[in-house]
């Protein structure tokens, strides 16, 4: 039984691992922290897996546990890296398809998103993943109205960072 559970979990996670990698890209400043956070999210997902009864999609459930781990449960390693030191090279911008102006803008946007606080990052992440405000609100535990209001504020904040 345990083996079966292990097998179904690992297969599910292997299939949907992109979600976890994207969370790690947003919250982890470098490759080492990325792996560290991925590891912790995997453990938390595995711990919660027996309780996953399929009321929601596996991916929806994964968003929740992954973000919870990144924001709340994960204990950052001792090496704290200031936002200024963060390399944005981990975001591969598909340069050929964009002109220089757009590319420059995207680079700035990614840097700006990395400067947001943990909660704002979570909102932006869910927004970028094309989640509805209802889903964003449920994941964060706030009302839908507040999710919209906060998202608008984050947009303004990003605009300000981009056009000081």
């Amino acid at each position, binding site marked *: 039984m345990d083996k079966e559970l292990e097998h179904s979990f690992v297969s599910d996670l292997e299939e949907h691992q992109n979600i976890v990698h994207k969370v790690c890209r947003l919250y982890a400043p470098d490759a080492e922290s990325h792996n560290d956070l991925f590891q912790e999210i995997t453990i938390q997902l595995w711990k*919660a897996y027996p309780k996953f009864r399929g009321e929601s999609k596996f991916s929806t459930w994964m968003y929740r546990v992954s973000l919870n781990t990144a924001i709340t449960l994960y204990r950052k390693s001792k090496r704290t890296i200031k936002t200024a030191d963060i390399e944005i090279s981990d975001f591969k911008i598909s340069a050929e398809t964009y002109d220089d102006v757009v590319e420059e803008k995207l680079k700035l946007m990614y840097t700006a998103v990395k400067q947001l606080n943990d909660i704002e990052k979570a909102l932006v992440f869910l927004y970028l993943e094309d989640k509805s405000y209802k889903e964003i609100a449920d994941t964060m535990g706030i009302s839908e109205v507040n999710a919209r209001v906060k998202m608008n504020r984050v947009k303004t904040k990003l605009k300000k960072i981009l056009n000081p």
Partner: protein
Amino acid sequence: MDELELLKKDWQKQEASLPKLSYDDIYKMILKKSSSIVKWIFVISIVEFLLMVGLEITARFNGTYDTYEDIGLSSEFNVVLSCISFGILIYFMVQFYKNYRRINATDSAKVLMENILKTRRAVKRYVFINLSFMAIMLLFVFNYMLFYSQEFEVLQQASDRDVPIYVLGIAFLMIVIVVVGAIGLVYYMIYGLLTRRLKKNYKELEKLEL
């Protein structure tokens, strides 16, 4: 906002550049141990409980309690003290375990943070009660030594200098403050460091609900 829409399009295109872990890589990961903050709070609390029980048992065996009797406090007093401190210990162990069980990574971010903070507050209350208990006990014993115990009087008379009683009182009070303060500071630092980020994020979420 067109910038964010632009970002959204690019964001969804990044899949190809994401790392790909194999089945075996992921399997190896589930065998490892977690190092989440909940686990750390849990470990620290267990250490606290063990330390308390250890102190109590050592004090019983090496005869620290006999000194209470030497200064005239009855053995019933000791029994009552032990009962109270073990009562506190058991009550909080149950509380703590119940809170710990409630922590669930599948809750919403806010509920999860609330449950962790609740657990942490239970530990903090335990520490606070223990420290108060310790302070009261020390004050009680010192007070008894100063005003009621004959042995202490004899001891004081035997020394060369006559120290006024209020000086002794102040000295004892200082000892209590320093000891309790030092232990309190250690706790403050341990939990402060551990939950600083959690508290910050929780405040941020709460601000949204205003």
